[in-house]
């Protein structure tokens, strides 16, 4: 059977699963899923009564402006090197982005690993290196291991600006908010590698919502969606793993142990979503000396989001990007106003890339 036939067959099964339901709304939490869904035209395969909402699963999009501003303040200090994952340098803060600062001579390095930032510190013993620690549970254990390595090697000129986020508290915050009724979640594949299948149990037991963990391949996403919509259709709040072999029931306990040693959970600000209780990671007291904000006495201020940007509503599924007055005119991937347009995994960027002509005509996505 060709892949297209297979996809159409699954589409028919999906339609069958939710037949007779007025409207079913499920959220794909992960930005990588969002991109794969758009890229492969998966939305067009879904029946009209199913709405897919792209959730807050792009780490760049949810990094609070106050953390970008703190990073910019750090990078402005004499003798300080800021090391960051690539996408972050384009996110606009209150006074420009790291990229604009770099053009003016600040020492900002793009790295693809926390370890590279640590190596940078080793090679530049007379300078302070600050790593911008962003990302979900996929990335947080790597930061934790790097901090432990810095401690063991006695490296004094390395610190991190900690703004790691936790996925499940964001999901429950959306459910608590209740503005957008959700029937279930397509859960991220590689975050789940760390946190495990059982991490989603509270969403099923306490909130009565179905969760299915899926891989990234288009076929895998369709299988995940089919299982999810079957559960929704049957009214079953269960957690299922459609990415077995990669994601384990208990995730990666060794990684979680490192994370729990170095970090403690804290209330954390999410871009345009406000502060979500116990949704972020701060350095544990024993590792506070690696906290760049403390080491350099940086005050983490407030967010003042760009006027007109509706990123917060976009990542909660309250509006679609085309409903933002800036979408495609003032805000484009080349000149992003909000973080959802910066990252290639951002919802606005995905819409712009795959739906701009459609969106302009007000068509259905």
């Amino acid at each position, binding site marked *: 059977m060709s892949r297209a036939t297979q*996809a159409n067959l699954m589409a028919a099964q999906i339609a069958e699963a939710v037949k007779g339901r007025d409207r079913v709304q499920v959220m794909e939490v992960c930005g990588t899923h969002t991109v794969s869904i758009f890229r492969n035209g998966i939305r067009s395969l879904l029946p009209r009564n199913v709405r897919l909402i792209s959730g807050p699963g792009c*780490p760049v999009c949810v990094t609070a402006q106050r953390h970008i501003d703190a990073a910019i303040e750090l990078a402005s200090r004499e003798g300080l090197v800021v090391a960051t994952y690539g996408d972050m340098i384009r996110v606009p803060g209150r006074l420009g982005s790291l990229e604009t600062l770099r053009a003016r001579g600040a020492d900002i390095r793009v790295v*693809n690993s*926390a370890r590279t930032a640590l190596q940078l510190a080793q090679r530049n013993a007379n300078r302070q290196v600050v790593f911008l620690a962003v990302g979900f549970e*996929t990335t947080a254990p790597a930061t934790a291991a790097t901090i432990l*390595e810095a401690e063991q090697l006695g490296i004094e000129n390395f610190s991190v600006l900690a703004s790691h986020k936790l996925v499940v508290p964001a999901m429950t915050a959306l459910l608590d908010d209740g503005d957008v009724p959700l029937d279930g979640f397509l859960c991220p594949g590689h975050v789940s590698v760390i946190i495990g299948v059982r991490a989603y149990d509270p969403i099923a037991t306490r909130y009565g919502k179905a969760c299915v963990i899926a891989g990234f391949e288009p076929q895998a996403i369709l299988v995940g969606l089919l299982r999810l919509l079957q559960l929704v259709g049957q009214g079953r709040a269960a957690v299922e793993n459609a990415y077995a*072999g990669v994601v*384990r029931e208990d995730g990666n306990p060794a990684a979680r142990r490192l994370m729990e040693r170095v970090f403690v959970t804290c209330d954390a600000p999410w871009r345009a979503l406000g502060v979500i209780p116990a949704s972020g990671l701060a350095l544990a007291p024993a590792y506070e000396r690696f906290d760049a904000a403390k080491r350099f006495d940086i005050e983490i201020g407030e967010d003042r989001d760009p006027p007109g940007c509706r990123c917060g509503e976009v990542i909660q599924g309250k509006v679609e990007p085309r409903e933002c007055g800036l979408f495609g005119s003032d805000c484009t991937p080349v000149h992003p106003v909000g973080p959802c347009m910066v990252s290639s995994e951002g919802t606005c960027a995905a819409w712009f890339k*795959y739906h701009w002509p459609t969106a302009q005509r007000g068509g259905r996505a």
Partner: protein
Amino acid sequence: MCLAVPGKVISVSASESETGRTAVVDLQGNRVETSLALTPEAGEGDWVLMHAGFAIEVIDEDHAREIWQYLNEAMAPESSAPAAQQDQP
């Protein structure tokens, strides 16, 4: 950003420090140094899932190949990728 890629462990270097164990991992022909701090069980010949310079899980070869299939398609030019028809206006 949370996408991890599979690779095969070619060699492992021991370390004094608890989190310092590293490996050379083959990523479709590219050899990269990777930390094994999060996968203490990983050894030579294992397939691992790599993210931001760290092996985050040991997986079997079949799953590794499946993920690469997705990655290769995702990185290929637009026209050759879709599993289904593209969205129509």
